[in-house]
């Protein structure tokens, strides 16, 4: 009976992303599952690395969002890994870290003049999004996403990626409740 009750309430969660707070280096153990990585640029000079060890080539969307009220807050992200375009000198200068030998980079500069306002219904947050960037990561390899604020603006951000959903382990929701002020209020 309890199993059916749990299924009744957990099955709709298949429309959401797994929440996780950002760390200086955030290891994602199952990058094929969609995630939302939440963080806070407190000083504006931080740069975060998200490590995505893919076991096979993938195509997936990525976007970065900020609270609606932070109109000038435009954190950016770069995807770094094998099979991506070699960075230009201007791009290499722009990045917060050096691109490892043999890797390439794709940068989302979050510079659309008008950003779409997105209402995130699970936690009822109103956000501004960079827009969804469709990516093909052509190698079964580890990719990294670097997130930083080139204009040194401060404030919360949420980095979302992927479409595949899996909430079979109820513990994946623990970070949401442990970081309520980040994902909720």
């Amino acid at each position, binding site marked *: 009976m309890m199993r059916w009750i749990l299924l009744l309430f957990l099955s709709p*969660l298949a*429309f959401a992303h797994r929440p996780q707070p950002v760390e200086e280096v955030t290891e994602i153990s199952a990058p094929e599952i969609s995630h939302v990585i939440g963080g806070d640029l407190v000083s504006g000079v931080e740069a975060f690395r998200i490590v995505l060890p893919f076991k096979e080539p993938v195509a997936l969307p990525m976007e970065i969002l900020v609270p609606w*009220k932070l109109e000038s807050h435009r954190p950016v992200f770069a995807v770094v890994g094998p099979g991506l375009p070699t960075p230009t000198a201007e791009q290499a200068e722009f990045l917060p870290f050096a691109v490892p030998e043999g890797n390439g980079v794709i940068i989302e500069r979050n510079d659309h003049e008008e950003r779409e*306002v997105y*209402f995130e*219904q699970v936690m*009822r947050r*109103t956000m501004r999004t960079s827009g969804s960037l469709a990516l093909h990561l052509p190698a079964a390899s580890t990719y990294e996403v670097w997130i930083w604020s080139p204009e040194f603006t401060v404030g919360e951000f949420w980095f979302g990626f992927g479409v595949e959903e899996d909430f079979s382990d109820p513990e994946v929701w623990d970070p949401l409740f442990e970081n309520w002020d980040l994902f*909720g209020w």
Partner: protein
Amino acid sequence: MISTLSLLASLATAPAEASALDADRFSVGLPAEVNLVGLTFGAHPEVLWSPFSPDGSFQVRGSMGLGIGPEMVVVPVSLGLRQVLFPTRRVRPGLGMGLQMPNFFPSGHGFLFRVDTYMEASLDVRVSDTIRVTAAMSPQFGGIVGGFGLGMSARVGVQMDLPDLLTLTSD
């Protein structure tokens, strides 16, 4: 003809039967409400109808509210059921569930329609002959219409039976 008139006369003079729509079957609540998911503050007035017994043990709840927050305005409209336990006592716990349309108006975004289910755990305490103080927690789960989402409302307010309220307003 005479017998028909006699019947009508007897009906007219007979004591009125208690009706499910009598005023004493209705109560009115005025709770302040904070929604802890998305953060809004406001009020969520409710009308409670006790169709089976005026003691208010089983209630149909209809309500419409307004919540304002830093990122949105919500206009929740709810219809549900509430079972009040120990209806004759001073302190009455209750459990309820129903449907709620949160009706989101996010800042900088168009209107969003959704239909949620809600549950509630309530407690009311009679503080005078006519007034009860009420408190309730109400989690909401979206997904019936308009995509999945969460909600969690906390309400505190006052509740009066309709006849008492009408008496108060006519004084």
